[in-house]
């Protein structure tokens, strides 16, 4: 039982990473019908930005001989890195995707992949092959509740992820920008007739998705501190699968499917040898998608007629 609960916590932690990244895929797809294949590498870049911000803050605190409390360091790192990474998202939209808005979707997808490769090798070119370690930020404390062992970091990771998802939900349902995003997901051609500029809503969506990926990256760095320019590939693709599983363009679906992915992976690993984990986990997901090709909350419908 204790072992089971421990795995639930692990699954929630991995689910948090997947969900935070999957949200970015889903949001962009929902408003532009576009799979942003740069997103995994935006996650990677966001993690490095988080690493840079945290390192700089630690250095700054040391220089001022001030022992900055861990929580403050974490909050500042997340906020600043989210902001900086959102700028990257805006640039990717502006430079990579906007010129291709009327082009076939395949052109946009290929462009996205190429920008991703540029981010990976740009990172390698600038930072070299040396592996960097994410600063520890918060000291690890291990709790033992009735034989279930877990760390404060895991709780923090899941908590911050949930908090961000709630904030996103509020934004989408309570603000006029959120309303415009929802409208765009239904029928983006009519949105300009409401006096809403697509060139405001599209970059904003990229910004939010990228910021969430950066937050995911920092949380990931807290749990798995070794950074790698190619760390965004596998996590990116898996989160993309989560976005599809949730239903193309469904925000709630992406979040839930992210967690489901975490559970499937962890519990497969509980039963099978770890080398079998992804083979079996993704066979299960393929099977689910065979029966629900539009995912959990996806719709075959779309009001995307021509005006």
């Amino acid at each position, binding site marked *: 039982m204790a072992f089971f609960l421990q795995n639930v916590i692990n699954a929630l932690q991995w689910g948090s990473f997947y969900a935070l990244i999957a949200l970015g895929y889903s949001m962009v797809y929902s408003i532009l019908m576009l799979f942003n294949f740069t997103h995994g590498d935006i996650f990677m870049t966001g993690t490095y930005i988080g690493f840079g911000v945290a390192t700089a803050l630690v250095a700054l605190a040391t220089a001022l001989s001030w022992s900055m409390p861990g929580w403050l360091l974490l909050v500042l790192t997340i906020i600043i890195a989210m902001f900086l990474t959102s700028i990257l998202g805006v640039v990717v939209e502006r430079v990579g995707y906007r010129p291709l808005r009327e082009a076939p979707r395949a052109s946009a997808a290929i462009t996205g992949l190429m920008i991703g490769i540029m981010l990976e090798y740009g990172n390698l070119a600038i930072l070299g092959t040396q592996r960097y370690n994410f600063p520890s930020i918060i000291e690890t404390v291990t709790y033992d509740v009735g034989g279930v062992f877990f760390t404060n970091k895991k709780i923090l990771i899941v908590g911050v992820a949930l908090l961000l998802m709630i904030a996103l939900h509020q934004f989408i349902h309570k603000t006029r920008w959120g309303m415009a995003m*929802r409208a765009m997901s*239904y*029928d983006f051609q*009519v949105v300009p*007739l409401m006096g809403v500029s697509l060139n405001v809503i599209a970059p904003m969506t990229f910004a939010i998705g990228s910021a969430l990926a950066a937050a995911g990256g920092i949380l990931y760095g807290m749990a798995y501190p070794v950074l790698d320019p190619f760390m965004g590939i596998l996590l990116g693709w898996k989160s993309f699968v989560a976005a599809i599983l949730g239903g193309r363009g469904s925000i709630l679906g992406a979040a839930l499917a992210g967690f489901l992915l975490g559970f499937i992976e962890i519990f497969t690993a509980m039963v099978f040898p770890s080398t079998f984990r992804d083979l079996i986990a993704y066979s299960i997901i393929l099977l689910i998608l065979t029966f629900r090709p539009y995912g959990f909350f996806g719709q075959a419908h779309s009001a995307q007629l021509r*005006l």
Partner: protein
Amino acid sequence: MQLTVENLHVSYGQIKALHGLGFSIVQGEIVCIIGANGAGKSTTLRAISRLVDAEKGSHMVFEGKDLLKFQPDKVVSELGISHVPEGRRLFGNLTVMENLQLATFARRDRALIKENLETVFEIFPRLLERESQLSATLSGGEQQMLAVGRAYMTGRKMMLLDEPSMGLAPLMMLSMFDALKEINRAGTTILLVEQNARLALKFAQRGYVIENGRIVLEGESRALLENPDVKKAYLGG
């Protein structure tokens, strides 16, 4: 002239839809454009809203400003031209109220927005009853009310209407046109596009007849209703 369109050319890829079309509207008028399926009525409205590109040499001026210099959202928010598209195109995943609110996205004149909203609910009391209902679940008639109400909320000086009679029962159709008259009396210019020529000509002061992307006839509505060619082609003999 509030709106002048001259030599308007529009193509969809290889297909040429408008061949140098022209017309004009005075502030406060109700003008209709009638024509058969595929004549280019919707394309004309889309060109004014800048949803499709007009070709070189096309000329459109709204209140002295070159309309071709404006992005689609600015045509609405800066020039004040609102467009009720063919088939209504409501945001079915938003409530009635949210559809109306979204139309005020670029507006900052809160007091006036509130007043406009009250006007919409006065003209279409049904919308107030259905305020928090998802617009996808409205009846066809209610959807048309919301489409017009939404266009009203953008703060329009001119309203472009693409076949507002489509799919409405006769009684509903009449009350819809009464509502549009009311909106017009309060100062909104109306450009109406219709296949239902009789209805449109009874409603409008002036009309244009469009065939294959060209204006072939124009005049006072009364004159067009009596015109033998119009009678034969559009009024059933």
